[in-house]
């Protein structure tokens, strides 16, 4: 069996869920009524690794992210978040693990009755930090996403791209060990999408945070694997031709199964008809 064949997954493939792995799925199944949405999904995310999750609309990509931090429960299987099995945990037990996980929602999900400052500062306010420390940290986070001028504004007055950036600032302010991005560039224009991609790559390369990124947009996915963030230029710079970021891998969900889990090279060399069509 060659290396490529190994990445087209057998349904019963089971990863070793190491304690240091930020996230690991083992044989996770979920039904919505009569429909099997996820069938025996297994994968393991390494420390500092970014996994790009591709798939057609309605294949359960967002649901997979919600399973990852316990917002939803699977029908069967095991999910290990920071080494702890979470499927049988009560809501109260999950909260400390979620505080180590940042999540960027598809529609931003900002609290629309709170200012940008209070949205971004949510976790710090929950920990009863002083106002001065909170303000400093919020300014840092907003500067990271280049949106410090929105400090006192309310989310409804922001554009879609700005809301997405605030959402990223909220997710990263407490330096999480894992970030879950749910279509962060969905519905945005190409220029704004590039800005968001830049932030995701910046987070990956500067803080080395493990992450899963759901996207429909292949262009965004390939921007991530073919570029790195240059802190001096404060911009994305392309990697040498033909090389890809080694810590960024792909997963493809198709017809309830995890069809592919592997490197960019493996994805490009794949002979699977669906993957070829997806990449075409």
């Amino acid at each position, binding site marked *: 069996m060659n290396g490529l064949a190994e990445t087209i997954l057998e349904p019963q493939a089971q990863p070793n869920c190491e304690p240091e792995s930020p996230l690991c799925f083992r044989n996770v199944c979920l039904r919505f009524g009569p429909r099997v949405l996820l069938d025996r999904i297994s994968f393991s995310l390494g420390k500092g690794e970014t996994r790009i999750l591709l798939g057609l609309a309605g294949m359960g990509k967002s649901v997979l992210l919600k399973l990852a*931090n316990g917002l939803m429960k699977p029908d069967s299987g095991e999910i290990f978040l920071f080494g702890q099995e979470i499927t049988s945990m009560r809501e109260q037990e999950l*909260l400390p693990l979620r505080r180590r996980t940042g999540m960027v*929602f*598809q529609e931003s*999900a900002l*609290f*629309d009755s709170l200012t940008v400052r209070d949205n971004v500062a949510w*976790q710090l306010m*929950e920990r009863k930090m002083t106002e001065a420390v909170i303000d400093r940290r919020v300014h840092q986070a907003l500067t990271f996403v280049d949106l410090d001028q929105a400090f006192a504004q309310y989310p409804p007055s922001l554009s879609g791209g700005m809301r997405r950036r605030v959402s990223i600032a909220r997710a990263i302010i407490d330096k999480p060990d894992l970030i879950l991005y749910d279509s962060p560039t969905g519905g945005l224009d190409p220029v704004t999408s590039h800005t968001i991609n830049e932030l995701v790559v910046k987070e990956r390369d500067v803080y080395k945070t493990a992450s899963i990124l759901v996207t429909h947009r292949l262009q965004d996915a390939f921007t991530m694997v073919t570029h790195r963030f240059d802190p001096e230029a404060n911009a994305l710079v392309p990697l040498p031709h033909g090389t890809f970021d080694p810590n960024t891998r792909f997963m493809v969900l198709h017809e309830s199964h995890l069809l592919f889990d592997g490197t960019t090279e493996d994805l490009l060399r794949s002979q699977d008809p669906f993957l070829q069509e997806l990449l075409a």
Partner: protein
Amino acid sequence: MPSVLFTENIDKAVRRWLMTVQDYAIFCAASLANLFRTPRYWADTLIQADLIGVGSIPIVVLTGFFTGGVLALQSAASLAQFGAQTYTGRFVSLSMFRELAPVLTGLMVSGRNASGMASELGSMVVTEQMDAMRALGTDPMKKLVTPRVIATVMALFLLTIIADTLGTIGGSVVAVFISHLNGAQYFSSAYQALAYTDIVQGLTKPVVFGFILATVGCYKGMRTTGGTQGVGRATTQAVVIASVLIIFSDFLISRVMLWIFPPL
């Protein structure tokens, strides 16, 4: 065949209803259990107390005042037939303290706040703000539900006292200026009619009504499905269910109170 289908439908409806009752009971228990768990959101509780309590004062003042007035107007006419107009104060205060102030305050606050809670929390659910809150490590039950329950119970208790007072005053205005009764006599009759058991009964009810309207409003909001249309549906259902439960529980509490404090 149609009878089998009919039975199946009844079976499904009863199961669904029982599941909802069980879910609501667990929801209520969780909202109470959070009183004994940290973190406690006192600032949020005060904000809600302001929104629910202070914000409801105008409608409660008006409702209490005019209800007392109407009671005095109706009772004075009837009592006059027996030459017992001097009992108007007694009639108004007993009716207000035992029944009308708690029930009407509960219904008015329910219309204003159970709907507000359902729509606010429902909107948060359909826009994923609730999931975002959970993803940030905050328990929405603690942060959103328990403060509303505490605030509503406290507010309704105090608002009922306001309604009691304003109802008695409203009755006195009618008694003095329309029925031409003696004001001192009215107040003396109103005061002497009240016994300890009437006060206990009248102030136990708002505690239960406050709990009902807050938990129903929050429950319908937190279980909203179906987008913005679902928010509208949840809002309407919250008011209807809370109002019916308030009237139903009023009957139960009155029955229990009569059992605990039998009339002499």
